[in-house]
């Protein structure tokens, strides 16, 4: 795992929120995530990474924040995680992945289209083997969310 692979995702996340919701989420102290750990998130967008590094980048939101974001963006009041909420989070993660792609141009890295995982305390399918995983919490006026990265270097830099 190389920090230079992760920074584009952090910046893309912050910019996307700033543009769409008007405030820049603040990053908090990162921590280690164990692969079997179940985090208290309700909806996640998973972006696959391949190339000189292999793994996934995951954006996880609690239910409340996901609904709040959807309310702001669609103008409809959301009180449950319905298809609109899932679509909105999917679109948001899509935008973030698209922006991050630009920041990753200098590397031999490819990123997949995001897929959405939803459900109480869902688990993320991290790459097999002992892959280092780091979580970066973000805080917004609407609540916390989390960016987790599990990457394995293939070409050692």
């Amino acid at each position: 795992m190389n920090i230079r692979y992760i920074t584009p995702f952090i910046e893309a996340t912050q910019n996307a929120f700033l543009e769409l919701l008007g405030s820049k989420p603040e990053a908090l102290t990162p921590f280690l995530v164990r692969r079997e750990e179940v985090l208290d998130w309700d909806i996640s967008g998973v972006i696959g990474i391949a190339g000189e590094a292999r793994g996934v980048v995951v954006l996880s939101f609690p239910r409340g924040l996901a609904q709040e974001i959807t309310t702001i963006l669609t103008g409809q009041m959301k009180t449950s995680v319905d298809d609109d909420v899932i679509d909105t989070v999917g679109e948001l993660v899509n935008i973030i992945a698209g922006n991050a792609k630009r920041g990753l141009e200098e590397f031999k890295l490819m990123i997949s289209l995001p897929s959405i995982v939803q459900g109480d305390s869902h688990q993320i399918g991290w790459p097999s083997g002992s892959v280092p995983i780091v979580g970066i919490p973000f805080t917004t006026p609407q609540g916390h969310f989390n960016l987790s990265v599990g990457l394995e270097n293939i070409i050692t830099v």
Partner: protein
Amino acid sequence: MASRFQKVLTNILRSGIQTTLEAEDEIRLLFINSIILVGFLALMVFALRDFFAGDHVYSLVTASLAFIVACLFFFIRWTKLVQVGLWFLPFLMAAFYGYLAASGGAGTSGALWSFSYPLVAIFLLGYRRGGLFTIGYVVFLGIVLFVPQLTPAWNMELDFKIRTIGTYVVISIFVVEFEYIRLQAQREIERGRKELAKTTDALLAEKSQTDGILHNIREGIFLVDEHLRIVGRHSDSLTQILDLDDETSWDFSTYFDGKLPEKEVQSLRDYLMMFFQSQVRPELLQTINPLETIKITTPRGRLKTLAFTFAAIKLEGRRFILASVRDDTLTAELNQKLKEEEDKAARQMRHLFQIIHVRPELLVQFLEDATDEIADINRRLKANSLQAQDDLMEAFYQGVHAVKGNAALIGLTSFSERVHDLENLVKDWRGKSPDWREILTLTIELSKIQAELEEIQALIQRMSTFQKEMANNTEPQDLVVMTVERAVQRLTAETGVQATLDLKDFVTDNLPSGHRKLVKDILVQFIRNSFVHGLEPAEERQARQKPLTGKIKIICQDRGPFLSISYQDDGRGLDPGRLRQTAIKKSLKNWDTRPDHEILALIFENGFSTAAEVSVHAGRGVGLGLVKTRVEASGGKVSVRSASGQGIAFDIELPKG
């Protein structure tokens, strides 16, 4: 409507024949039907006119002729026998024209009709056969005109007669000439058409070959013009390999837009443009190909590894790049996987090497401690998000330091070096409050160390599983017994001699471990001896009234200070007479007078063998000698008993100590 009228007319003129005919036959068919039609109408007109003019004979003749002509038309139409019509009509017309000429016709101008005869005859039957008719008719006409008795009805001026004949001949000559030229032209056209067809066929065959290649080849092959556009035809695989949605006139260089960094796309364009400059050497261009292997995301979002090759070609004066592309995705993925595995294996090997030198209980303790330390750091990291802690970095440092120290202490050098690097990073932040960005760097490093720790744990797990698997196996079989059994099996297979092995009194529990190898080697030697010298093949045993299968028995007994091992087989045994002869031959002292038991002991002498030839198993004369030497070296004794034809027995006594 015009086309319908045309269809009806064509049907009438072709006598209802639908199939395509040879050009020559077609012309004749159309011609005969035209003549019939025109002739029929003309004859009917004349018949009516003559009838109303009161000339009933002429009218009847003309009408009958019209009827015959009509019959001919339907005859051809029904039977499709065009040839019959072609041959019949000239006769009919010769008769009719002759009658007209002879009778003078209306206004004594009947002879004028004769001028159309060469046209009809030659066009119907060709210039050769038609020519004969023409000549025949002119002779007939001459007779009609110049023999007065034949033309009583009228008289014609001589000049007129001569001119009539002359005109007829001139017309005939021109018609023959015309027909001849027409035929030549027709043949010429036919030949040209055939040649054209042949060329077209060849071209079509060539095209279908090219098509076949372009449809089936797995590589994408295409042409690029000087505007870097893909032009002309390309192999079918191309759209699949490049994942193109729309293949109409796309730009090869824009294909890479957004897939490669802009600078690389520009240099790719520059590279491709070099193919259109004649001064650049092709070999040089090959070596600097930037697309030799390239990883890109295709327009449909698939990740591919593609390998391109380019060559400059000239077609009709224009320069093109002949490009081919191969999909190497699978190969690349495989290589990557391989490299991944290799790296991992190397790392694990390093770990393994160090782990096996560490005492297990120390290692377990270390792993527990290290996991705890890292978990503790992580707890503080997580807590820091909620409430900033002044001592976060200090705790981070101390935790990492402890892990490093412990790893170095028990000898996990490479692991401790990794941790040491992290320690150096953290050291600089002691007593400070770095922002999340700096902490992220440290966290990433920590996560790598945690991953490595997990790897070590997994490795130990595997080793212990392995150990357990081994331990769970049923009591390992005694190695001596196993070796003996295997030796019998192998020699049975090699010599074809059958023998059973009796080990029921072969108790190896009290065999001192120091003697195991010796006993094993000795027994293998004896077994070899039995199979090569002692045990007979089945036929020989039958002749001697022995059981067909030979028997080997080994006994091992505990006799206080000594261990007694007895080996027996029921083979030929030793022949003292033969031994004595061998001894005499090798002139080993004066053996002919020695007693038998001394003779038997000879087999333990090095270099003494009765085998005729040296093989893997026998003949070197060292086997039994070696047994004796080694038994005596360990303080024991060996002796041999034998009854010729009954078998042999070796007795060994070994001191236990």
